[in-house]
């Protein structure tokens, strides 16, 4: 459990971080072909800016959108556009994609120039640079970072929180970034502070990463406005609102964002990406992911080009160790199972976890009303009752019991001794409510 601040509720799943947490980040050699999806973020999908047979440079913008909430995408290798076609997104739906055949020349785009000294950049410039670099939240949600940095004028931001919890089991990419590139995280944090025009930042790190805490404390020592906060080991410590409460004690009211409380939360990986693109001018075309689980021969932390296919990444990890039953994009608590290994890594992919067996039961038993789901819920809901209403078709009652306030962390399903599909039913219920509301308004 450890010491440190935390939130109420939550669970303690075994971390399995030891598989990779002491392994240095390795760079994956760029694959022969990358698939850059036009939707790698929350918000409007990009339109392709290139067509078949076009020659593209590494770092060249190949997709963009006019949408207020969106982020451009860039070529992660130099080469020839093989196709512009629809492809399966890790989340299961199909989106447009630019398929690039790597010519191996690593030809950099001429537009790529370092931004210059942080002190010489003003607020607006930093936000624009971050947008143009296509930076989104690397923790998994992939919310465009520049949008977070541009709050409406009436919302006064006072605090920046850098999320270094990495509470999902197996994942260690953020951990390694903090240990190996602490100065990058700090540089990115300073850039974010500057972009927000504030001078108070906390870096929250779970106590199971003492080396990361030490490294970050050392790197932040010269900066009085950045403070490292050790947090208890608990899932979902890295959930945005839970993290805000753990660090500041503030509760984000329902229907509001941390922004409404004057707080902006960014992931450590995002901070490092901001630093990298400001320093070199290179947009977000690669990221660190953790490849782990007993189903891969060589669990490790890899720096992979965005658009690298799952099969290529697994190949680098020496392939499967036995017969895989589940290939999960993301961590085991919230990740999405894959059936097609040609799915590419996107900006929001924190890792790939492979299991050789099912670690969850497939047949639910009768609920014994033990209340474990209630105790575990970090949103203080009564999952069992909400699910009863959802399953019974009583959506109004489900909403009255807080259906829409579920943060989809999966803690309830994790603890349920009867193996009931709680978060799964809640998700369905949320979709149904959303569908009903859309129908009403249209």
């Amino acid at each position: 459990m450890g010491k440190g601040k935390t939130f109420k509720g939550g669970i303690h799943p075994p971390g399995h971080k030891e598989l990779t947490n002491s392994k240095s980040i390795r760079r994956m050699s760029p694959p022969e072909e990358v698939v850059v999806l036009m939707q790698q973020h929350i918000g409007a999908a990009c339109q392709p800016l290139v067509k078949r047979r076009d020659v593209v440079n590494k770092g060249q913008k190949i997709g963009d959108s006019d949408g207020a909430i969106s982020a451009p995408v860039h070529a992660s290798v130099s080469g020839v556009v093989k196709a512009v076609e629809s492809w399966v997104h890790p989340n299961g739906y199909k989106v447009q994609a630019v398929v690039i055949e790597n010519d191996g020349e690593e030809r950099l785009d001429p537009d790529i120039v370092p931004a210059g000294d942080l002190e010489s950049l003003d607020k607006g410039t930093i936000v624009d640079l971050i947008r143009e670099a296509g930076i989104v939240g690397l923790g998994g949600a992939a919310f465009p970072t520049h949008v977070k940095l541009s709050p409406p004028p009436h919302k006064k931001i006072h605090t920046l929180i850098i999320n270094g919890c990495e509470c999902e089991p197996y994942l260690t990419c953020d951990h390694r970034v903090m240990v190996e590139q602490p100065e990058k995280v700090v540089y990115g944090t300073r850039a974010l502070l500057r972009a927000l025009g504030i001078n108070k930042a906390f870096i929250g790190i779970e106590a199971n990463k003492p080396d990361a805490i030490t490294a970050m404390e050392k790197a932040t020592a010269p900066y009085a406005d950045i403070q490292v906060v050790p947090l208890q080991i608990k899932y979902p410590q890295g959930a945005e609102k839970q993290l805000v409460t753990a660090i500041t004690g503030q509760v984000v009211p329902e229907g509001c964002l941390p922004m409404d409380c004057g707080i902006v939360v960014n992931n450590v990986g995002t901070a490092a990406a901001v630093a990298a693109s400001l320093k070199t001018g290179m947009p977000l075309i690669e990221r660190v992911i953790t490849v782990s689980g007993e189903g891969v021969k060589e669990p490790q932390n890899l720096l992979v080009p965005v658009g690298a296919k799952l099969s290529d990444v697994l190949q680098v990890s020496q392939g499967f160790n036995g017969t895989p039953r589940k290939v999960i994009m993301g961590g085991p608590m919230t990740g999405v199972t894959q059936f097609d290994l040609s799915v590419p890594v996107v900006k929001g992919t924190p890792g790939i976890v492979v299991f050789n067996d099912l670690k969850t039961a497939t047949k639910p038993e009768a609920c014994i009303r033990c209340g474990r789901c209630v105790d575990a819920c970090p949103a203080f809901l009564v999952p069992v009752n909400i699910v009863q209403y959802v399953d019974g078709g009583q959506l109004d009652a489900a909403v009255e019991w807080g259906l829409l306030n579920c943060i989809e962390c999966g803690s309830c399903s994790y603890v349920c001794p009867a193996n009931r599909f709680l978060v799964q039913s809640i998700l369905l219920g949320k979709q149904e409510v959303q569908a009903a509301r859309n129908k009403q308004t249209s």
Partner: protein
Amino acid sequence: MQDSAMLPDLTDARLVISSAPHISDQESVSSIMYGVIIAMLPALGASMYFFRTRALWLVIVTACACVLTEYVFQKLRGKPVTIYDGSAVVTGMLLAFNLPPTLPMWMAVVGGIVAMTLGKHVFGGLGSNPFNPALVGRAFLAAAFPTAMTSWMSPVTNTAMATATSAATAAATTAATSAATSAATAAATSAATSAATAAATSAATSAATAAATSAATSAATSAATSMATSAATLGGISAATAVDTISMATPLALMKVEGVATSYWQLFLGNVSGCLGETSALAILIGGIYLIYKNYIDWRIPVGYLGTVGLLSLLMGQDPVFHWLAGGLMLGAFFMATDMVTTPITRKGRWAFGIGAGIILMVIRLWGAYPEGVTFSILLMNGFTPLIERFTRPRWYGEVEANA
């Protein structure tokens, strides 16, 4: 979809698609049930020490009756058989713990059948029953066989003939089978005063009549019965040196009817007469602490229940320790009132449940005709559980009052 470099050993992979989460903790319904069974072992040990093999047999017979009933019921209804989840064994053991050691076996079997059918399966089985099945079984037995259900034997360890245990047990069994008359018989053997005999006889008659009547009227009957028993006991005490241990009032009855207090130490150890598993507070505490430690029960219920009883006894000028240790309160607080299925799911609701049960218990103990009220206090609160849950929904994270 484009061809991708196939991984060498992927050919026969059957990848499973499922919604997150993809891991779960190791606890299961049956592991919880077996945990509860383990927690009952100290109390079972204590009852075997005090009441010898009689106790063990009663537990085994009742548990088997419950498991078999569940099996037959589920088979008849064409439902999946769930006897291995351990919940039927838990119900059976708990029911046995709530029976007098002298109860005829066939009555225990009837209690088990009622507990599993009326208490559990008519509502749809595990998780759907509103009332604690073991207590439903017990309440039924108390209504149907009031005398047998309030005929007590003194612990074997208490008697002058402690060494002749099997003889004592056998005697107890024989005596108990003729339940309606045993009280009177015992009273007679004791050569008590005519007043006592008269009281016993009239009480016994009323008990016999009432055996056929419904649960509603049984409380009054039981009061009469317990009076009979205690009258008999008085006789028993005077004759204790002569015969053995057949009939003995519970400490609560002694207190209520005769104003005789039993020593704390005897109560704590359980060296008193009473239901099988309820006498030893020590053994129950060991099991209860294990349950709390394993997170199988919520400490709020026993603390709320016992706390309320203690507070009310103090307010009423009674001895709280006596109220805690005597009767079935300890067993009820740790094992019966904490049944997950029939108690509120919310933390606040669990406080409410414990406190409510404590109030009802004290009302019954202080003003009711019945010396004991654990069963009814818990059953009543079971009935309130849905209501309590509705009023104790926790405020969710960031909840904003609807019309604030």
